């Protein structure tokens, strides 16, 4: 499966089927800091992903003094 990360935008290939939470752990991303998006829906940490999936890990942090 293909995992898209942002800021800066980059893509990584992750092989095999696994749970979202394991993908996050492998990529050292805290669940609290991203939305996990597949197509037009979001996934919870217990869902299985793999194969031809394209998953976007969209950061949710915004910064500076606002």
């Amino acid at each position: 499966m293909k995992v898209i990360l942002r800021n800066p935008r980059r893509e990584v290939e992750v092989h095999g089927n696994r749970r979202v939470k394991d993908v996050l752990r492998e990529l050292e991303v805290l669940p609290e800091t991203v939305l996990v998006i597949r197509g037009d829906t979001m996934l919870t940490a217990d869902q299985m992903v793999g194969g031809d999936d394209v998953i976007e890990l969209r950061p949710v942090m915004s910064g500076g003094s606002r």
Partner: protein
Amino acid sequence: MKCRKCGDRAVLELRRHNAAFCAADFVDFFRNQVREAIRRYRMFERDEHVLVAVSGGKDSLALWDVLLEDGYRTSGLYLDLGIFDYSVESHAKCEAFAAAHGAELIVVRVTEEIGAPIPVIKDVTRRPPCSGCGLSKRYLMNRVALERGFSVVATGHNLDDEAATLFGSVMHWQTEALSRQSPALASTHPKLVRRVKPLYRLSERETAAYAFLRAIDYIVDECPFAKGATSIAHKETLNRMEDASPGAKHNFLLGFLDRARPAFERVDAVPLNECARCGQVTTGTVCAFCKLAERVKRAG
């Protein structure tokens, strides 16, 4: 994982609430949290005209969306900071959102107000960009609201923003800042409008999820100056605590508001004057914004 309300497949898990929701029930949950915030702090009345400060990011557009959906009378205020492509793109997102909702968007350009865009102000002052930027935003929001007859400005500050600010103030025991931190700042002078933060109960992951589920087209990329900001470092620290102990951020902020903040409330209110140049409120003779504009002019 199943939705706590209806049992359908959940799209988002909220560990701190020990719950998961499907799209429709999450949107409901989100709006109820905003309503609760408005009610609890009596942020504004049903018939009040609310100025919503929008940046093109997820938080402020999500806030505007909720208020529009709930039938509030609102106008958006976009401050063009002149920060390269970021400002161009974020402005376009706000225009598109306003147009799609038939809502009014007021646009004010920092370059016209102060004589230079944020990147130049940063160079002139040799201070972090967020310092001149934050000051200009607070000043302009208030002035525009006053000039146009709004009694309240709503901003998109979320739970993470507020927890990070609180963390910073506590780390340095800035008691003055602690006394002023609140989801609703009442007007303490005829020339200061009320400032409210209806998203203070919602984490930034929740505001991002709301924006995504409502198909709000917001700017995902960050302001190029956000990277080095201390607030980001504080957010990262808090997120690690949250990961180890869900609810940490929520308890930190809401516990402060309910139990600790009253202890910092100041009895000896600082006297407020009107700036000799622009007439806006200041504690000195000339306000910080006018001083900044002066420096920019001299450097120009």
